C-alpha cells in the first residue's frame, strides 16, 4: 500500500507516464523468480551424448530435425581448450602431447590438468573483473591509484583456481568482514563493494550527493553481479515490465547504508616494523635530492613571487605589505586575495628559471622519480569495507533518483518478488550485509545459481542461455532459450556444493562444446542464431588474449602469477591524455623490470581514464559499469595498432629471432613449419607453405615482416 502511494506520488510529482505498478503476485510469477525445479535428464540412446548438457540440447535439436556439427579435430580442440581455460595458446609440445595421447580419457585428463592451474583462475578472473567493473584507480580527474586494490584481483584468481564454493565466494564479497572475521582473504573480498568508480575531489562538493553515488555503485554492483538484474532501472521510478520496484531498489540500497570504506592492515607487526625501517632508509635516499631541489628552486620561486606581487593592484599590495596585526577587516580580505593572486604555480617558477638550471632541475627530478620507483611495498592491507559505529543513515526512496527529492523512508529488505527464506535483517548497522549474503546464497534462491551457471555457459559456449547474462529481469530476457537446461545446471550447481569447476567441466566435456564452427545453410535457415547449439559459435579473442598470445608465440610471455599492477611503456599520445594540473612529468612511472612488461594483460595497470590502445581498440570494457558480454567491433584502428605499434613490432622481431634461432636464417621451410606450429598450433597446408616460402625467399622482405603478417592473421584472433 505504502509502495503504491509512493509510486503514485512519484507519478504526480514528476509527471511520469509509467502505468501503476502491477500487483506483486504478477511479478513473483515471473519465471526467473521461481526456484529452479530439478530436471530429469532426457533419456536418449545417442552415442553423441557425453554429459547431461548434450542430452538436453539433443532433445531440442532432434525436435527440429537438426544434427549437431562434427567434432573439431584433436589439434584444434586442444587449441580451443587452452584458449578457453587458460586464455593462452598451447605450445607445440602441448599440442603434440594431446594429439599423441591415445588414451580414451586423454581429453578428460587434459581438462583436469588445465583446471588445476592458476592460469585457469586468471582466465576466469578476467571474466569476473569485467562483471564487477574492476579497475586499479578511482576514475574522474584525479583518477588516483588504489594501492592495495589488486589484492582483490588476486583473491579472485585464487578463488577460481581453488574452486571456492560459489556461495562462499558471494558471501565473502558482500560481507566477508561480518561473516568471517579474522579471515584476511574474506576481508580483501569486500573490495568488491568498492570496485566501481568513485569521485574524489576537493572543494565544496556535496557530501550527500557523493554518498548517494557510493550507494548507487554498491547496489548496482550487487544487482549486476549476483542477481543478474539491472536494479538501477528502478532507481528513478517503477517500470511496468520490470520485476524490481523502486521501493525494492532503495530497500536493497539500505543494506549498504551503514557501510564505511576502510583500509584494514592485515600485516604482521614484524612486517610493519620491517616496512618502517625500509621506508626510513628509502626516504634517506630521497631527502638529499629533495633538499637540493628545494634550494635550487627557492630563488626562482621567490623571484616569481616578487613579480606576481608587483602585478597586484596597489590596494592589494599595500594590504599585503602591512603587518598582519595592523590590517583592518577590509585589508585582511584584501591581503587574503592578494596572497592567492600572487601564489606561485610551478609554471610561474619555471618561467623565470634560466635554461641551464631548468635542465639541471629536470635531471634531478628524473633521478628522484627513479628512486621513488624503488620505494618499499607498503605492508599488506585490505581495500575493504566496514560498518559505521554510529547510527546508520536513513535510506529514503528518491524521486527520479535525486537525493534532493527524498520520498518515504525504507528499511533494508529483500526483494519483494523473492521469498525471504525466514531470514531477518538486523535493524542496526552490523549484520545487514551478512543477512543479504545469506539470502542470496540460500539454496532455494531463484537467481543466484541461475545467474552464475548462465555466465559459465556464456563464457564457454560463446552465447548465454538468456539474451543478457546481466539481466534476468523482464526488460531483458523474455525467457531462456533452454529453460530446462538452465534449471538443470542451476540445481546441479547447488547440489554439487556450488562448484564452478563442476559446471564448467560438464560443459567443456560435452559433445556440444567440442563441435566445430561449421557453416551449413540449411541448418542456419532453421536456427539462424544458433539458439539450439547445432554448431560452435565463432568467438573472437579478447584484446588481452591477443596481447598474451603474441607474447606466448614469441616466447617472451612472463607467466608470473599475482602481485602489484604493472605499468608498461605507453605511447606519448596516450601519456598526454593523463590529466594533471601539476607538472606533467612522472605521470606514468613505468615498472622498472623489463621482464614485467611481458606479464599477462590481467596484471597491467587498469586505469579508468587511460586505456591502452591495443586492449581498448579490441573492446576492452571501460570499467564504468558492469560488463557481462564484451561487445565486438571490427575497425581500422585495430589494424593500425596490430601493424605499427611498438608492441607488435617488438613481438614480430622476437618471433623472427625465435624462428631464426631454431631453424637458422636460411631454412625457409623449417621457419614456416615452426611459425605455424607456434602461432596456429598446426602445420601449414601446401598452399600456405608455398606462400610462406615464396615470401621468405623474396630478397625484399624480412623474416620479421612474415612474422608480423602471421600475428595479424584472422585465424589467430578467433577461437577455432
Amino acid at each position, binding site marked *: 500500500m505504502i509502495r503504491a502511494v509512493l509510486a503514485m506520488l512519484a507519478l504526480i510529482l514528476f509527471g511520469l507516464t509509467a502505468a501503476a505498478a502491477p500487483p506483486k503476485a504478477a511479478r513473483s510469477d515471473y519465471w526467473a523468480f521461481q526456484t529452479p525445479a530439478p530436471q530429469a535428464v532426457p533419456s536418449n540412446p545417442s552415442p553423441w551424448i557425453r554429459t547431461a548438457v548434450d542430452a538436453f540440447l539433443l532433445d531440442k535439436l532432434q525436435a527440429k530435425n537438426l544434427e549437431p556439427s562434427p567434432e573439431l579435430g584433436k589439434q584444434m580442440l586442444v587449441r580451443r581448450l587452452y584458449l578457453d581455460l587458460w586464455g593462452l595458446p598451447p605450445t607445440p609440445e602441448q599440442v603434440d602431447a594431446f594429439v599423441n595421447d591415445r588414451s580414451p580419457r586423454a581429453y578428460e585428463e587434459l581438462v583436469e590438468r588445465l583446471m588445476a592451474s592458476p592460469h585457469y583462475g586468471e582466465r576466469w578472473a578476467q571474466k569476473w573483473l569485467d562483471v564487477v567493473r574492476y579497475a586499479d584507480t578511482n*576514475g*574522474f*580527474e584525479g583518477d588516483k591509484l588504489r594501492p592495495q586494490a589488486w589484492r582483490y584481483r588476486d583473491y579472485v584468481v585464487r578463488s577460481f583456481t581453488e574452486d571456492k564454493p560459489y556461495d562462499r565466494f558471494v558471501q565473502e564479497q558482500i560481507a566477508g568482514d561480518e561473516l568471517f572475521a579474522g579471515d584476511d582473504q574474506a576481508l580483501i573480498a569486500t573490495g568488491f563493494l568498492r570496485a566501481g*568508480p568513485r569521485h574524489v575531489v576537493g*572543494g*565544496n562538493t556535496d557530501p550527500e550527493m557523493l554518498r548517494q*553515488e557510493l550507494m548507487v555503485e554498491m547496489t548496482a554492483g550487487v544487482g549486476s553481479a549476483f542477481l543478474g*538484474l*539491472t536494479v538501477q*532501472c528502478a532507481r528513478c521510478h517503477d517500470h511496468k515490465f520490470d520485476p524490481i520496484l523502486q521501493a525494492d531498489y532503495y530497500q536493497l540500497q539500505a543494506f549498504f547504508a551503514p557501510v564505511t570504506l576502510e583500509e584494514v592492515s592485515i600485516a604482521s607487526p614484524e612486517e610493519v616494523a620491517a616496512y618502517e625501517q625500509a621506508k626510513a632508509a628509502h626516504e634517506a635516499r630521497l631527502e638529499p635530492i629533495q633538499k637540493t631541489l628545494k634550494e635550487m628552486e627557492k630563488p626562482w620561486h621567490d623571484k616569481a613571487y616578487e613579480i606576481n606581487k608587483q602585478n597586484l593592484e596597489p590596494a*592589494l599590495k599595500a594590504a599585503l605589505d602591512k603587518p598582519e596585526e595592523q590590517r583592518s577587516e577590509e585589508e585582511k580580505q*584584501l591581503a587574503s586575495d592578494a596572497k*592567492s593572486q600572487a*601564489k606561485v604555480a610551478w*609554471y610561474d617558477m619555471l618561467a623565470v628559471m634560466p635554461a641551464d638550471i631548468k635542465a639541471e632541475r629536470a635531471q634531478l627530478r628524473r633521478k628522484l622519480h627513479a628512486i621513488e620507483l624503488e620505494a618499499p611495498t607498503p605492508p599488506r592491507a585490505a581495500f575493504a569495507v566496514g560498518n559505521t559505529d554510529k547510527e546508520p543513515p536513513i535510506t529514503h526512496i528518491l524521486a*527520479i533518483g535525486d537525493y534532493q527529492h527524498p520520498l518515504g523512508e525504507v528499511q533494508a529488505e529483500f526483494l519483494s518478488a523473492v521469498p525471504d527464506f525466514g531470514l531477518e535483517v538486523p535493524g542496526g548497522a552490523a549484520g545487514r550485509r551478512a543477512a543479504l549474503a545469506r539470502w542470496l546464497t540460500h539454496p532455494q534462491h531463484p537467481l543466484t545459481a541461475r545467474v552464475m551457471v548462465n555466465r559459465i555457459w556464456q563464457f564457454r559456449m560463446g552465447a548465454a542461455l538468456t539474451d*543478457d547474462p546481466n*539481466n534476468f529481469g523482464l*526488460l*531483458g*530476457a523474455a525467457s531462456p532459450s533452454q529453460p530446462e537446461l538452465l534449471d538443470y545446471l542451476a540445481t546441479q550447481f547447488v547440489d554439487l556444493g556450488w562448484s564452478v569447476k563442476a559446471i564448467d567441466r560438464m560443459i567443456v566435456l560435452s559433445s556440444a562444446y567440442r563441435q566445430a564452427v561449421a557453416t551449413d545453410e540449411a541448418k542456419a535457415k532453421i536456427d539462424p542464431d544458433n539458439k539450439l547449439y547445432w554448431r560452435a559459435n565463432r568467438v573472437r579473442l579478447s584484446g588481452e588474449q591477443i596481447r598474451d598470445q603474441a607474447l606466448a608465440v614469441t616466447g617472451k610471455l612472463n607467466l608470473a602469477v599475482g602481485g602489484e599492477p604493472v605499468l608498461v611503456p605507453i605511447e606519448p*599520445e596516450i601519456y*598526454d*591524455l*593523463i*590529466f594533471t*594540473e601539476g607538472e*606533467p612529468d612522472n605521470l606514468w612511472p613505468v615498472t622498472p623490470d623489463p621482464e614485467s612488461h611481458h606479464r599477462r594483460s590481467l596484471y597491467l595497470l587498469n586505469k579508468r*581514464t*587511460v*586505456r591502452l*590502445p591495443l586492449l*581498448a*581498440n579490441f*573492446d*576492452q570494457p*571501460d570499467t*564504468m*559499469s*558492469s560488463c557481462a558480454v564484451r561487445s565486438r*567491433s*571490427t*575497425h*581500422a*584502428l*585495430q*589494424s*593500425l*595498432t596490430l*601493424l*605499427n605499434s611498438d608492441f607488435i613490432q617488438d613481438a614480430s622481431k622476437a618471433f623472427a629471432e625465435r624462428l631464426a634461432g631454431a631453424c637458422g636464417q636460411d631454412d625457409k621451410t623449417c621457419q614456416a613449419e615452426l611459425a605455424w606450429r607456434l602461432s596456429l598450433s598446426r602445420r601449414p597446408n601446401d598452399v600456405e607453405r608455398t606462400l610462406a616460402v615464396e*615470401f621468405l625467399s623474396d630478397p*625484399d*622482405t624480412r623474416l620479421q*615482416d612474415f612474422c608480423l*603478417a*602471421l600475428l595479424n*592473421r*584472422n*585465424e589467430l584472433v578467433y577461437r577455432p
Partner: protein
Amino acid sequence: MSSFIDPDLAQAHRIRRELRRRDVLRGAANGFGALALQSLLARDGHAAPKRVDPLEAKTPHFAPKAKSVIFLFNVGAPSSMDTFDPKPKLTEMHGRPMPESMGKVGGQFTDGSQPIFGSPWEFKPRGQSGMPISTLFPHVAQHADDLCVVRSFTTRSVVHAPAMYEVHCGRLFATHPSMGAWVTYGLGSESDNLPAYVVMPQPEGTPEGGPPCWGAAFLPAVYQGTLLRPGPTPILHLERPPDMTESRQRRTLDLLQKLNEMDAGQDSEMAARISSYELAFRMQAHAPEAVDLQKETPATREMYGLNQDHTRDFGTRLLLARRMVERGVRFVQVYSGGGPIFMQWDAHQHLVANHEKMAGHTDQPIGALLTDLKQRGLLDETLVVWGAEFGRLPTSQSGNGRDHNPYGFTMWFAGGGTKGGRVIGATDDFGLRAVEKPYTMRDFHATLLHLLGLDQHQLWYLHNGRHEKLVDFGGNLIEEVYA
C-alpha cells in the same frame, strides 16, 4: 574578415564532391582493394560474404538539418557574463554584496559571500540582430547574425569532471557513451579514409574529464572518438615503423590478406576484418594528405591565424576541423584548454589575463571557421557548437577571479539549420541562475540529435538489459534553435 574570398572558393563544392566520390571508389588502386577481394572470393565459387561495416552511413530517423558537428569545448568554463550574456547590474553593483534575496550561492571554492564582480569588458550590439557580444570576441562578433545563443543552460555539478561528463555523455558519472559516439553509432560515417569521430585536445593537456569525454563506454569500440593531432602522423599508430618501407608493408599485407581470405569463408566478421586492413592502409595514404595544411592557400592559413603565435595552435586545429567535415567526418570535437590551469578557462584568479589569453587564442580562428564554412557552402550542413561544462559566478574569487557556476550559463550554435541572430532564454539580473526557459543538458542533447535527424527516443543501445540512450528520460527540444 567576412569580405575575404578564398580563391579556391569557386571550386570548393567540386572538390568536396570529388573527395567523397574518391571515398566510394575506396582505394581500388591499392592492389588489394575491396574489388580484388570480391573477385578472389568469387573465384572460389563463393558468393562474397556480406561485409559488416559498423560505420556504413545510415539513414537518419527523419530529414536532418545538419550532417556533421564541430563541437568547440572550452575547458575550465568561460564566463557567460563576460562574453555573451551582458549584466549591467553587476557593473552597477560592483564590489557590493549580492542582495540577500538572491540567496548565498557558492561554487566549488567560494561560499557566495564574496562581493559582486562587474564585467571588465564592454558589450556592443553586433550585426543586423544587434546581439550583444563582449569585446573579448571581436571576430566571432562579426558572425552575430549566424549565432544562436542560448543563455539558460544548466549542469548539475560545480566540479569540472562530472559537469563535463554531463555535457559530453549526459551523466555526471562517465558511465555512458559520449554524444559523438552516439551520433556515429546512429549515423555512421561518410568518409572511408578517415575515422568517423575525431577529437583534438589542447596540446598542453587533456580536459579534466579525460578520454571518457570522447569514449564509447558500452558501445562497441568502433564508435569511440579518435585522437587527431596536427602534423604528419595525425592518428596513433598511423605511421609505419622507421624500418618498414611502404613496398615491404604492401608485400606483408598482401601475404596477410591472402592468408586471411583462406580463413574468411562465409564469415562476415572475418570479411570485415579483411576490409579493416584495406582501410588501415588507405588511412596511411590519405590521412596525412587530409591534414596537410600546405594544401591550403596562404590567405586561408592567415585567416585562421596560423601566422601568429597566439592563434597558431587553435587555428591549426580549426582548419583541420574544416578539412575533416569537408571529407565526410561526422563529429569533430575540439578543445580550447586542458592540462595546467594556465591553459584553461578556469579563471579562479586573474579573470582578465586569463580570458584575454584564452579568447585571444580562439576568437580569430572561430571567426575564420565560420567564414570559411560559409563560403564553402558547408555551414548549412555543419553544426558548430560552442560551450563548456558551466559558466562562472557573478561574485569574485580572490578579488579578481570567478568560481564555477552551473546554475545558468551560455552555449551557442551556428550553422546546421540553426537560426542566426537569435538569443534564447535568460539568466537573472546577476547572471547567477537561468530564470527564463532554463534548459538542461538533456534538452541540449535532444536538440543536437534532432538537428542531425535523430530521434532521441529511437537512438538506443541495449546494455545490461536496459535500452540506454544519450538522453535519459527524454529532453525537451529547444525548438527556437531551429524553428
